[in-house]
């Protein structure tokens, strides 16, 4: 006798609110952006027409787009490497602390807790080329003969922004890596010590395999967040001076809200989305391979 398969409604009940929210807040904006990217949509003017791929052609032949794209890559890679390195080493250090670990962890997380506007204004104030605390301190200590111009010197401004972003993002990496480190069974280290494994061998063969999936996921998330980061750069330099710190999100913003060419701006955001999807697919492929190896 054929058994009747029962449809389980309960699971749909629980995911329905999430589906509605995702559908409203994610799917609609993506498809409207996709549509507008093929039109002459203007921020103020109501009339617009369909122009196919003309906006994409215009963007992909604009030298400023590629400059912004390169700046985005450098911004992402520089920030990510710095954040992972600082976050990882801090987590390893705090993991070995025996006393008041919670206090250190809380202190280290402070930069992450500040809103972007506070971080941007604070750093602008600290690095101000006339009255900023840091430039004046460096001169008073005799390290510099003139006030260093962290935010206007073409050779310093981009590096300065990356360092601010590392300061801001490393705590998040630290907390996550620390959590992963604390899940590693102690007996594995003890067994390794009995077998005569060196500290590096313990790190390489026990620590890394246990946390690599967590770090991999962090890299995926941080890559997307950093690449899409707009507020920090916009609030500190506005993409200047001379477009030296103009990343793709700022380029898209200037296009949509400056020149009000929403169609062209949408084309930029769709290109950005495609690029990040590609990067995410590569990352997820690597993580899936790691997970398969672990099993």
């Amino acid at each position, binding site marked *: 006798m054929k058994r009747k398969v029962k449809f389980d*409604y309960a699971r749909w009940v629980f995911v329905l609110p999430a589906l509605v929210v995702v559908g409203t807040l994610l799917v609609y904006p993506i498809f409207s952006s996709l549509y507008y990217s093929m039109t002459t949509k*203007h921020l103020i003017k109501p009339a617009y027409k369909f122009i196919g791929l003309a906006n994409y052609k215009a963007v992909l032949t604009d030298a400023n787009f590629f400059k912004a794209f390169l700046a985005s890559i450098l911004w992402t890679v520089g920030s990510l490497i710095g954040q992972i390195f600082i976050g990882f080493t801090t987590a390893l250090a705090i993991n070995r602390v025996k006393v008041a670990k919670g206090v250190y962890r809380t202190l280290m997380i402070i930069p992450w807790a500040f809103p972007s506007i506070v971080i941007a204004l604070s750093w602008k104030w600290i690095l101000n080329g006339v009255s900023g605390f840091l430039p004046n301190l460096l001169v008073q200590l005799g390290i510099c003969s003139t006030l260093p111009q962290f935010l*206007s010197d073409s050779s310093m401004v981009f590096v300065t922004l990356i360092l601010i972003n590392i300061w801001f993002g490393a705590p998040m990496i630290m907390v996550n890596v620390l959590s992963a480190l604390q899940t590693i069974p102690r007996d594995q280290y003890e067994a390794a010590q009995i077998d005569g494994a060196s500290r590096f061998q313990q790190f390489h063969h026990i620590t890394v395999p246990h946390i690599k999936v967590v770090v991999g996921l962090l890299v995926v998330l941080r890559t997307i967040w950093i690449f899409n980061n707009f507020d920090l750069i916009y609030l500190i330099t506005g993409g200047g001076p001379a*477009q030296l710190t103009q990343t793709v999100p700022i380029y898209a913003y200037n296009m949509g809200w400056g020149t009000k060419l929403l169609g062209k701006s949408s084309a930029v955001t769709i290109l950005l989305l495609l690029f990040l999807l590609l990067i995410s697919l590569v990352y997820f492929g690597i993580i899936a391979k790691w997970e398969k190896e672990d099993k």
Partner: protein
Amino acid sequence: MKKLLSIMLILVMTVSLFAGCKSETSTKEDNKTSAKDNKAEEESKEPKANESENKVAGELEGEITFWHSFTQGPRLEVIQATADKFMEENPKVNITIETFSWGDFYTKWTTGLASGNVPDMSTALPGHAVEMMDADALVSVDDLIDDIGRDKFSEAALSEGKKDGVCYSLPLYSHAQVMWYRKDLLESAGLEVPTTWAELAEAAKALTKDGVYGCSFPCGSGDMMATRFLNYYVRSGGGSLLKEGLKADFTSDLAIDGINFWVDIYKNCSPQDSVNYGVLDQANLYYQGKTAFDFNSGFQISGVKANSPDLVDQIDCAPLPKINADDPDYGAETSNIPMVVWANSKHPEICKAFIEKLYEPETYTKFLAATPVGMLPAITGISDTETYQSNPTVQKFENAEKVIEKAVTLGTAIGFEHGPSVQAGLLTSQGVLEEMFQKIITNGEDVEKAAQEAEDKMNEIFSSVQ
């Protein structure tokens, strides 16, 4: 039974989801309520004795939202007090006031226009008003101007908000750009107040010492300061940043001279950081006594007063420098700050009645006194009243007021030399000239090449609105 339960659960969760949205909306609206709402709530608890009185024919009734950019305390307080008084006189009216900086205001109305999320009435900058008119976003205020008295307004100020013979804005106050200087620094260096650009450059270079910069040149990409400064120079030679036919003109001999002049000032007497400066960064330097010369309106006085009260006696202003001392007097930039009523408003009659209230002599004088000499009256019959003249700041800065008053009559908004146009608004809102100066200063780009690129870029932007 299980199936039924599941369906009911789906329904309950979906309804609660929308209920959640509704309650959030309500909260947002609640946050916006003014003191009037509390008052209304208290009144609702009272016996409804006044209800019949309220139903007088023609009585104003409804809610309006007023966006303004008077972010400084005293101006904000006067506007709020006027709104409170208006609501007291019109119990069925509720005015919600929201304050934004000019930059935020521009972003907010341009993005809000498509969705109808614009206020009932607002302040604007002259360039904004033209863009608003171009987008058919405003209603005529000719009736309001007639009620206040058309002859009280300057024709030039009214024409900035005029399209096809209809006025869509009316000026609330006026001010103009002049040159501010430090009397003590000039005196100690044995220098006279410069009257030409060459004299200014010489004096600024001489005064750049001991932690003071002669003159800061700001060109931050998020503001319009470099456009403003280049416009001073170009206007002083009788030119314009727009040529006939409303095309950008950044490559004329006059403009190239102006660009070279400001690059020279930047290199010799300006903080390096000013390449990123906006209006507030620039003004703050002068407020704190770190620059000898600056260019601004009478708002400079309140800024110095608040930041460095000891320096108030040491500041004064003079007309903008000329290219040759015997060139005719000129005004480079006059700002007649307009009020507008939005087409989206359900209650334009309330907006107009409230605006009229702002122009009542007592209210208007109080408003101007919030930033004396910073805001000059846009209507006649105010500046010669005893109340206005008795203000200590007006008395102390009598010379400054005269200089600014004269500049107001000689100038226009940037690019309005050929009449109000969308192109003039775009000239200041796109940061094209700021980017050009940054490229020259930071990347060492050739002046003429950078000017040509900027001109082409600006003309391309102009073509997007045609």
